[in-house]
């Protein structure tokens, strides 16, 4: 007689089969997603075959051999299902894709996929599939199935799927993925903690400057003992550095666009938590970076980046003049830097120039939703036109 666990494994398989059958109806514009889904079906067949010949398997073996792989199928489908052209916020994903390519210049191909969720504050990066090559290597070793690309999974609120102002936070979420791939801030955490504890000595003034941003570490100054990962302050520091990095990463592309929004959302600007630094600090660090003011965190993060992949945080956007928007026209975007710069232009208008935009509409619309709609439409069309023109020129026969 087979064990109940084996039958539950078969239930898990049946659920996966159902989900894959349903997903067969998905139409993807991007062929890579289609190929990825085909590989999932292949993987499923291999798992099913293997499970059928393995009815004496123990509970522990079920987890080690199969469950993780079926979970992998589900996790992939969760994002692929929401990434059909009808659902994906195509224009913003294209912008993120350009930003991602700045940082991932070699290695595997990554495809940004989205999952639309109901939580209106639910912008987040889900690293489940992209955190490591390990699972892909395992599948290749065990089943001889090689996936053509990796999925970069981003959650975003269904209600804000076409909101180009709040979408700027997705650049921050992309930062989490980049940081996770290269482990910039986790490596830096260890170095900074060693500096504070005195294991790795640096100038005392510099320690003071670091402690300004991590005040809770003052108690460990000069203790000459390593703070281990079991210490909550290790993770608090790592989390804070991660957030600082992501803010800086985003600001390369969107400038200070998310500063005000961040302050509005967090309400309490002064206090830090275990997961996030104080909003005031976050805003200060971004402003220092954008204004090229010497800042210890920017310096240390840049040093870490340089030693890991030879890159640096730099301003990768260009201002797009507001004139087109005031003329109720999509902007003529000249290059990738301006493409990212569009978001900042949209924010500047929303924050400071609503009355001027309203004048363009002869002050016929007082409801904020109309002005928001105009800004959204103009940003969307500016991005779409840039992409269209680029692809047209590429496909056009050369004279």
């Amino acid at each position: 007689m087979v064990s109940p666990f084996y039958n539950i494994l078969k239930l898990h398989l049946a659920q996966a089969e159902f989900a894959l059958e349903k997903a067969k109806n998905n139409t993807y514009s991007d062929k890579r997603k289609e190929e990825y889904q085909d590989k999932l079906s292949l993987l499923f067949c291999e798992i099913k075959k293997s499970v059928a010949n393995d009815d004496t398997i123990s509970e522990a073996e079920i987890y080690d051999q199969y469950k993780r792989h079926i979970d992998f199928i589900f996790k992939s489908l969760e994002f692929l299902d929401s990434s059909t052209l009808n659902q994906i916020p195509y224009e913003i994903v294209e912008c993120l894709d350009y930003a991602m390519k700045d940082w991932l210049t070699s290695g595997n191909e990554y495809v940004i996929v989205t999952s639309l969720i109901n939580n209106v504050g639910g912008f987040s990066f889900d690293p489940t599939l992209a955190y490591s090559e390990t699972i892909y290597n395992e599948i290749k070793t065990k089943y001889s199935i090689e996936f053509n690309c990796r999925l970069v999974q981003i959650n975003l609120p269904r209600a804000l799927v076409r909101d180009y102002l709040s979408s700027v936070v997705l650049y921050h979420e992309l930062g989490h993925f980049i940081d996770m791939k290269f482990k910039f801030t986790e490596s830096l955490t260890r170095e900074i903690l060693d500096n504070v504890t005195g294991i790795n000595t640096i100038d005392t003034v510099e320690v003071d400057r670091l402690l300004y941003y991590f005040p809770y570490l003052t108690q460990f100054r000069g203790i000459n003992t390593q703070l281990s990962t079991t210490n909550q302050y290790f993770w608090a520091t790592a989390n804070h550095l991660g957030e600082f990095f992501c803010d800086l990463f985003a600001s390369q592309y969107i400038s200070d666009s998310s500063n005000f929004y961040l302050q509005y959302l967090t309400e309490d600007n002064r206090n830090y938590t275990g997961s996030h630094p104080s909003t005031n600090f976050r805003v200060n660090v971004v402003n220092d970076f954008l204004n090229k003011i010497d800042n210890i965190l920017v310096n240390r993060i840049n040093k870490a980046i340089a030693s890991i992949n030879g890159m640096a945080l730099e301003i990768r956007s260009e201002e797009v003049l507001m004139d087109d928007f005031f003329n109720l026209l999509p902007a003529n975007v000249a290059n990738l830097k301006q493409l990212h710069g569009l978001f900042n232009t949209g924010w500047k208008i929303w924050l400071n120039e609503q009355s001027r935009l309203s004048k363009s509409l002869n002050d016929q619309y007082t409801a904020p939703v109309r002005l928001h709609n105009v800004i959204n439409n103009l940003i969307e069309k500016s991005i779409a036109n840039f992409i269209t023109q680029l692809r047209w020129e590429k496909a056009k026969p050369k004279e």
Partner: protein
Amino acid sequence: MYHSHSYQDEAFGVFVSFLRNVINGDQKYAELILPIITDAHELATGEKTYFTINRDNYTIITFLVESSKDYFQTLNTGNIIKSDYQRILEVVSSQRELVFA
């Protein structure tokens, strides 16, 4: 918003599973584990730093070294035997409870 999910658990889950498979005699998994153990050894001996070890397996490598530095310093990565895998599994299993408690 502005949250990244914790991914350490998944990374450890996969690694523990690999170790169990090797211990049970599936040599395919040894190939997947070897680069991790080698990097852990090199980090422990100072041949590599936190900035130069493999980025994909960073979490596991640093965890192994910080949990059992002496062991990884002396480990002969050219000849890893079953008892080594068992020892590493013990390190991971016992120490993880502390980290994720």
